[in-house]
C-alpha cells in the first residue's frame, strides 16, 4: 500500500467510525439467563445501534473490560463500580436492572433459622466469597467465630445438598430454585435485609465513551429500557432464544426465574421514574457503606458514579 492509499484508507476508516452502524459490544458476566433477558430483548436496530452481546463466565472482568475499552458496555454491580472508580477506573452506571439486591444466603429449612444473625451464630459451614463487601459486612456485624467460612463453589450446589448444616451464598432466584428442583427444602435470607442493597446487573460504560459518543449511549439506554419492558411483560420469546444459547438451563426454569425476578426489577421507584432508574441517595448510602468497610480508600461523590440519560417513564 503506498502512502496515498494509506491516507485514503485511514480517512475512510475514520469516517466509517463516525457512522451510526459501528458495532458496539456489551459484555455480560455470566451465560445468557433471565438476569440478562432485557438485554437480549432490546430492539437495538430500531435505535440505530449494532450491538454484539458477549456472554461471560465466572470471573469475567467486565468492569476492567469497560475501563480498558475492550467492550463499550458491560454488566457490573454497583459496589464493584464504586470500588473500580476508587482505583481510577472511570466507569459510569447508566441503567440498573435489579433495584433490590438479589444476593442472599441459602440454608436448609430444617435448621429452623430465622435471620442472617442466626445463620452466623448457629455453627455449620458457610460458603462465601470473602472478598465481597457484604461478606465483610456480615463478618463485622455478626462475626465468623461460630461458623466455618469456606470458599464459594460458584453455582455448584453439590456440597449444599450433601450437608444439612451447609449454608451458601446465592442469587435468590438462582441456586435456591435449582436446590428445590433437586428436592432440598431451602430457606433464603436476602442480604438486602441487613441494609446492604446496591443496584446489581447494572449497565455501565466508560466516562471516555460518554464524552465521545453521548448520543449513542443515550440510544443504548433507551433500547435497553425498552428491552426490559418487553421482557418483564412477556419473557417467553426471549427465553426460547436464550435457552438455545444456554441449554443447560431448562426452559421451565427460565420462565420460573423470569417471573420470580419481576418484583426486584419493577418497583414503585421505577414506576415513577422508569425502569433502570437510579437515585443519588442509594449511591450515597452504598459509598458510605463501602467506605466504612474499608473497601475504598477515599469517599467519592455519588454523582460521578451514575448518569441519567433519559428520564422517560416506560
Amino acid at each position: 500500500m503506498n502512502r496515498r492509499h494509506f491516507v485514503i484508507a485511514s480517512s475512510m476508516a475514520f469516517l466509517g467510525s463516525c457512522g451510526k452502524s459501528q458495532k458496539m459490544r456489551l459484555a455480560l458476566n455470566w451465560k445468557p439467563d433471565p438476569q440478562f433477558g432485557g438485554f437480549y430483548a432490546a430492539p437495538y436496530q430500531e435505535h440505530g445501534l449494532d450491538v454484539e452481546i458477549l456472554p461471560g463466565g465466572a470471573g469475567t472482568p467486565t468492569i476492567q473490560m469497560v475501563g480498558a475499552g475492550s467492550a463499550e458496555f458491560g454488566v457490573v454491580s454497583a459496589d464493584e463500580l464504586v470500588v473500580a472508580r476508587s482505583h481510577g477506573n472511570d466507569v459510569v452506571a447508566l441503567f440498573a436492572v435489579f433495584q433490590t439486591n438479589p444476593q442472599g444466603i441459602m440454608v436448609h429449612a430444617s435448621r429452623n433459622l430465622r435471620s442472617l444473625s442466626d445463620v452466623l451464630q448457629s455453627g455449620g459451614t458457610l460458603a462465601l466469597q470473602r472478598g465481597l463487601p457484604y461478606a465483610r459486612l456480615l463478618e463485622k456485624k455478626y462475626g465468623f467465630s461460630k461458623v466455618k467460612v469456606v470458599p464459594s463453589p460458584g453455582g455448584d450446589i453439590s456440597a449444599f445438598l450433601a450437608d444439612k448444616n451447609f449454608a451458601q451464598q446465592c442469587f435468590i432466584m438462582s441456586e435456591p430454585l435449582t436446590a428445590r428442583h433437586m428436592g432440598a427444602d431451602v430457606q433464603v435470607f436476602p442480604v438486602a435485609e441487613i441494609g446492604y442493597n446496591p443496584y446489581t446487573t447494572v449497565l455501565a460504560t466508560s466516562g471516555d465513551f460518554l464524552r465521545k459518543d453521548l448520543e449513542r449511549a443515550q440510544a443504548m439506554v433507551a433500547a435497553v429500557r425498552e428491552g426490559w419492558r418487553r421482557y418483564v411483560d412477556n419473557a417467553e420469546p426471549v427465553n426460547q432464544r436464550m435457552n438455545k444459547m444456554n441449554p443447560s438451563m431448562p426452559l421451565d426454569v427460565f420462565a420460573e426465574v423470569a417471573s420470580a425476578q419481576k418484583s426486584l426489577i419493577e418497583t414503585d421507584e421505577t414506576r415513577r421514574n422508569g425502569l433502570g432508574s437510579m437515585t443519588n441517595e442509594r449511591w450515597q448510602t452504598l459509598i458510605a457503606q463501602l467506605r466504612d468497610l474499608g473497601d475504598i480508600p477515599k469517599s467519592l461523590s455519588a454523582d460521578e458514579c451514575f448518569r441519567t440519560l433519559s428520564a422517560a417513564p416506560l
Partner: protein
Amino acid sequence: VSARRLRAVIPALIPLVVVTAIAELAARYGLVKGYLVPAPSAVLRAMIESRGELAGALLTTSASALTGFLLSTIIGIGIAVFLSSSRAIQRAFYPYAVFFQTVPIIAIAPLLVIWFGYGSRTVIASAFVVSIFPVIANTLSGILSTEPALRDLFRLYGASTPVTLWKLRFPSALPQILTGLRVASGLAVIGAIVGEFIGGQGLGSVVDVARTQQRVDKVFAAVLLASVLGLALFGLINLLSYATLRRWHQSEQQ
C-alpha cells in the same frame, strides 16, 4: 560474597532490573492502567502493607505444595518402577497415568472438596494430581533407557531384579528423574494455589479475595510470592541434583 558468585548471579538480575524499571515507568507515565497492571512500586507497597497476612499465606501454601510434591515424588517413582516391570503392565496402565496430565482440576474441584473436606487436604490433593505425571513419565523413560551393555553385565553376574533396579537402573535414571521433579515442582505450586481457590487458605485465598476487591497490586504481590516459592523448590532440586550427580554426570560437571 566472592567475585565468582557475583558473576553467577548478575546475569539473572539484569532482566529483573530492566523489566521492573520498564514496568514502573510505563505505570508512572500512564501507558498501562494501574487497575489492569499495577506498578512494581504499588506491588511492593501492598507486600509491605499486608506482610503478616502474606507471610502466613505463603507458609500455608508452601506446606501444602511441598507435601503434594513429596507425595507425587514418592508415589510417582513407585508407579514408574511398577510400570517398568513389564511391557504388558505398561500397555495396560500407562494410558491411565496420562489421565493425571489432562484432568482439568477445576472440573473435579467440587469432588475433591467432598472427598477431602475444606482446607489443606484438598489443597495437597490438588497439588499432587497436577504434579505426578511428569515424575511418572520421566522416571519411566529413565529406567527404560538403561545402557544395554551394563544390563548384560548385571545379568552375567547373576544380579537379582531388585538389585539391578537399585544399583543400576535407578542411578542411571536419576538425571531424568530430577528433570521430572523440576517440572513437577512448579506444577505443585500451581496445583496448590488452584486447590486453595476451592479449598480455602493460603496464597490462593489471598488472590481470590484480592481479585474480588479489585486489588490488582495485592494479587500481583501474592503471585510474586508464589513464584518465589516455585523458585525455592526448583533450587532445592538443583541442590539435590548437584549432590547426587556431580561425581559422575555431565550435567553437573561444568
